[in-house]
């Protein structure tokens, strides 16, 4: 059994959610073969998100991988949904979105609050050590979102890293498995230990769980309910020199619909 530092489910209050959550919301998580799936991008909290229209200058990669084939997702500039594709339906499809970086400035107190909410206490310590804790922050941020859609059978792609800079990678296909969710967080392709990973249930966003990744980047959740889940995590590193920012954050998310076991349905 892989090393998991902390898997105890923690019920978090609504206040801990930061308004920066970003996730992929397809028109369906169970497309029929040949059907057209629209891909919405959402930013918000409690699974209530504002639509993020397609802005090509903000997109680094926006693709769907079906049966091993990767294709870019078509879309119309400035509109929501941000894209469409035709579902293959043969196996689990993976949608991936990687944004370019944007710059944000924040007052020191607000920045510190946000760092705590995202489990980035190490950054608070570093800022303190550097004497930056009373200064406003300048932060680059970018998104690394994924969604899994069911197909007739599971696909190896569902459990493979796609090369996103920060990425949540399930260890088994959670769209077909009712076993506890086990996954890893990878930063630049390597396991990231100590990252806070949060899972939120769409049907009732008050139901959420948190875990810290282990040395091998692994974490797990035993979902109490079937349905659509959002798994998310934030990584923060020093911003590249010359970028005009001190910090760079990477926001990873994974959305999918977990099938129900008899026990789950009972709950």
């Amino acid at each position, binding site marked *: 059994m892989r090393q998991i530092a902390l898997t105890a489910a923690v019920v978090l209050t609504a206040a801990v959610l930061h308004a920066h959550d970003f996730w992929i919301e397809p028109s369906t998580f169970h497309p*029929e073969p*040949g059907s*057209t799936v629209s891909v919405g991008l959402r930013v918000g909290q409690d699974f209530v998100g504002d639509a993020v229209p397609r802005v090509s200058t903000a997109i680094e990669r926006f693709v769907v991988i079906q049966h091993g084939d990767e294709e870019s997702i078509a879309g*119309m*500039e400035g509109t929501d949904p941000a894209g469409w594709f*035709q579902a293959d339906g043969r196996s689990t499809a993976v949608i991936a979105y990687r944004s370019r970086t944007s710059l944000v400035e924040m007052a020191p107190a607000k920045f510190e609050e946000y760092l705590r909410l995202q489990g980035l206490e190490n950054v608070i310590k570093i800022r303190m050590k550097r004497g930056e804790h009373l200064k406003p922050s300048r932060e680059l941020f970018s998104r690394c979102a994924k969604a899994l859609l069911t197909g007739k059978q599971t696909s190896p792609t569902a459990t493979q890293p796609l090369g996103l800079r920060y990425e949540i990678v399930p260890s088994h296909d959670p769209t077909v498995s009712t076993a506890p969710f086990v996954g890893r967080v990878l930063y630049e392709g390597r396991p990231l230990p100590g990252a806070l990973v949060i899972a939120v249930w769409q049907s009732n966003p008050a139901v959420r769980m948190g875990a810290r990744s282990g040395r091998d980047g692994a974490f797990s959740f035993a979902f109490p309910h079937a349905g659509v889940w959002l798994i998310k995590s934030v990584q923060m590193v020093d911003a590249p020199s010359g970028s005009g920012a001190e910090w760079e954050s990477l926001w990873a998310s994974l959305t999918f619909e977990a099938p129900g076991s008899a026990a789950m349905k009972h709950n």
Partner: protein
Amino acid sequence: MKKLVIVALALLVLLPAAMQASDHADPMTLKEPLSNITGLFFFPKGDQMILIMNVRRALTAPKPYQLSPFSYVVHMDLHSKVTYDDPDFKARYGGTVVNPSGLKDDVLITFRLNDDTTVKEKTFVGLTNPEAIQVWTGTRDDPFIFPRFFKKNVISMVMSIPLTSFPAGQQDWILWGTTHKGDEMLDHVGRSNRSQLGRFDFLNTLKVQDQVPAILDRMKSRDKLYNFFNQYKQTQPIAGLVQYVWQIRKYDIAPDVMIYSNRFPPGFPNGRQLPDDIVGITCLYGDCILQELAYVEGKFPRQTVNDKPFLDTFPYLAEPWPDSPEKPPLKSIWPLVIMWLVIILILIVIENWIVVKIFCRRRQYR
């Protein structure tokens, strides 16, 4: 000035698409006018389904028409799943075809016509009791309610198909029409005012099963084109034109088929009946170029009924207009282009000759 030049160039490239879009004359490059589909109608009448396919726009010339090389085909899919829960798609297309790639010819109706518009050959595949199907072919008034086609005829193929020819309990029909010359597909029709729009010209020679992937591909390439022009101050007007004429809309991702369901009252977009005001209805949902042109070319207020009353009895289409000479076909631009190229070439030669002469004379003086 520069801006004017850029806009003029863009107009030159893009406006033909917009203008051609208006004349229910798709495909835009009208190689074979006699294969050009001008309308597809499907509606119930008692215990019959009436099916009409019209070809040859703006017809006023007398017979014969050299129709024998062409075949005219109506395809029907009777098994594919159609859903009606998306109000956008129901309003525009009559419903949603869940798996467009899986569309099949459960019914295939093929006509070949003699040059006098009588039936040369007809086949009905997938329909029971085909001898009970009543057929009429010939010239009739163009039923499209649009000023440019008032007082014009079309060549019609009209069928009255007993409901008993379809599988018992059939509720949903997906149909489309194609024309062919030998193995070459020349034109396609599905929902009215779709494939004649400039942004959809590519659909006219595509199999219906391949249309959605092709639409998604065009969506990508045209969005790139739009974004390219939209990023510079000088080219932004071109981006506006690309958006209006070419860009694939978010509601365009559907195969070009006609959907009819007896779960709902007949009439566009649930099938199509002869009096349907396609120009007005399609404008309600975003495609307004025909409505604009109806105001440009027609009288006020816009006419929303046909220019001749339809018949109450089979074949339902209005009697044809009298024959009259047609406008000669448009000239080719190539002679003009070649003439200008020759003039430019001559001017270059003269200019070079003068330069050489001056150069030689100067050398002589030295």
